[in-house]
């Protein structure tokens, strides 16, 4: 992390990003807790997934290890399957 001492602007940007994403996370949490409908709560997972991609990128910038990008790839690729599963479940509940 000594690298960042030589890049004060980037350092600031990284921490600023962390701050933004953190606040965003809590916003998502608020929605999870308040709802009101089930789809409202479910989409929080999507939001968190996006924010996690953001966090991963921020960590890449922080540590200088782009290898973490692999995690973002997987999140981008697969998280929507969770939504589909939720949707299928909700659909069944309508049908019943």
């Amino acid at each position, binding site marked *: 992390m000594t690298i960042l001492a030589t890049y004060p602007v980037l350092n600031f940007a990284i921490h600023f990003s962390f701050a933004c994403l953190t606040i965003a996370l809590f916003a998502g949490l608020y929605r999870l807790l308040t709802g009101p409908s089930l789809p409202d709560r479910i989409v929080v997972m999507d939001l968190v997934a996006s924010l996690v991609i953001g966090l991963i990128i921020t960590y890449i910038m922080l540590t200088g290890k782009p*290898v973490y990008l*692999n*995690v973002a790839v*997987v999140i981008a*690729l*697969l998280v929507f*399957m969770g939504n*589909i*599963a939720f949707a*299928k479940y909700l659909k069944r509940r309508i049908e019943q």
Partner: protein
Amino acid sequence: MESVILQIAARHMRPLLIILSVIVLYRGHNEPGGGFIGGLMLGAAYILYAMAFGVGKTQNRILFSPINLTALGLLIALLSGVPALLSGMPFMTGEWVTFFANSAFELKLGTPLLFDVGVFFAVAGMLMLVMFSIMEE
């Protein structure tokens, strides 16, 4: 009736995920990935397909039944340890072959990679089996 958009997407993503899973498997020894992650991805390809088209159609798209795929994976993993036995070393001692040595395309293949292939199939097979079993109900 399932969403058309989902069905189209599933059709597109299945080959994509399969190719990616193989890449992930291959890269695993040097980069993030490996048999397990690749296997999950392969399984995910078919789970997505099954969520869009139902289990029956999905099973028609697979050469091996999931349970045989799992067993095949186990067998491959097991056999990857045998070359060592044949050359008198303890089970699972890595045996490596180098192609194009000292060139830009130097390629090392070894039994640990084969082992990872076994993991790949076993995990994928198990995942499919589980999901198909439950989704079929």
